[in-house]
């Protein structure tokens, strides 16, 4: 993990762990307290919270359609790059995390106020 003023970069997965237009669920943080969904969409990597804002289903069990993730339970869609809720039953946006790739490893920046 690498610290910044914004939080900590967490080593999340190897780039080879995610197929194109797919999603992978990972647990980050010292206790695995951050449930994060990693995406590879048209060659770009993204990260969002892994729990749907509607009824907490795991989005990493869902389906990537174009640049959206569809919840596996009620099929609400979120725009992955922005986290925006696209259609009912989801109405609350999804948290997104900054992502960087270094030496084929995906890092996710998670805010950590205690780290400031």
């Amino acid at each position: 993990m690498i610290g910044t003023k914004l939080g900590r970069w967490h080593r999340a997965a190897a780039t080879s762990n995610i197929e194109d237009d797919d999603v992978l669920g990972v647990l980050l943080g010292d206790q695995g307290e951050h449930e994060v969904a990693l995406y590879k969409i048209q060659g770009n990597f993204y990260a969002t919270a892994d729990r749907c804002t509607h009824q907490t289903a795991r989005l990493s069990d869902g389906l990537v359609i174009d640049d959206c993730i569809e919840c596996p339970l009620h099929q609400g869609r979120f725009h992955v790059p922005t986290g925006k809720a696209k259609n009912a039953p989801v109405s609350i946006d999804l948290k997104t995390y900054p992502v960087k790739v270094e030496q084929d490893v995906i890092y996710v920046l998670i805010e950590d106020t205690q780290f400031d």
Partner: protein
Amino acid sequence: MKELDELVSVREQMIPRANLKRLAKRNNYTGLLFLAFQFGVIACTGWLVYISLGTIWIIPAIFVHGAMLATLFAPMHETAHGTAFRTLRLNEAVLWLCSLIYIFPPYWFRYHHAFHHTYTQVRRLDSAMVLPKPITLKEYLFYVSGLMVWKRNLSYLFGHALGRIDPAERLYAPEDQFPVLIRQARIMLLIYATVGIVAVAYGSWAPVIYWLLPRVVGESYARWIRVAEHTGCAEGSDPRANTRTTLTNSFIRILWWNMPYHAEHHLCAYIPFHALPKFHLQVRDKVTVSSGGYFSVHVDLFRKFIRLRHAPRAQ
């Protein structure tokens, strides 16, 4: 959420995610083909009504036309899930069209139905629990008549238009969406009022003859199909036991957008209707299947009513 975790865990044990992903692929053309076929059938039954006007045949013609209008529940259901089409806007447009004809507020149905999927057959939580056990013949007949559905839906439609949200709805609709429910009900009533005014202005009974009357009497067909989905199945959140697939002929399957594969649909609601027959082949030994068709399911239910009636005397 216990019910949700159980559903996911059962699904993961039954079928690898890679298979599900393959089955879950969406497209636009299959839904459009199904929709074109369905509206073609509805146009034919509407024509039957037209040529029966002024004869005794108008009665069966209106029932048949109403039954076909009732099958619009299927695309409404599939679009409420968002799985009918790959393109979201097309999906929403068809949801609106079907909801208007079917007289079901679209987002109300979507939220109500989503909750049903979370709490399928969980008593006091399942928003669409058709007939909890024990069922009686009287309850069954009342449900199949469709009267309960009209009472409920019209009360929500007019209630929402007046800005009222029923306390029961707070269970399944998020509060930030109440304005959307209210706006949709008002738009629907405005469209219906416009149709009514135009019909009166032209002295036409067409909306009543080709839509309202058949729609009211045809609802019982939709209920008759829907009773088979869960009634008599186990209560609780196990999708292998709480939902029934009813094997039937391909005409019914197409009209109902493969909804007869209902256990598969509940097992994995993100698999679109056109992939359900393939999914059925992969899981048919693990879910509840009635192979005798809808009549057989209803005959079994009648047997249960009879047993229920005799049960107290046997004690």
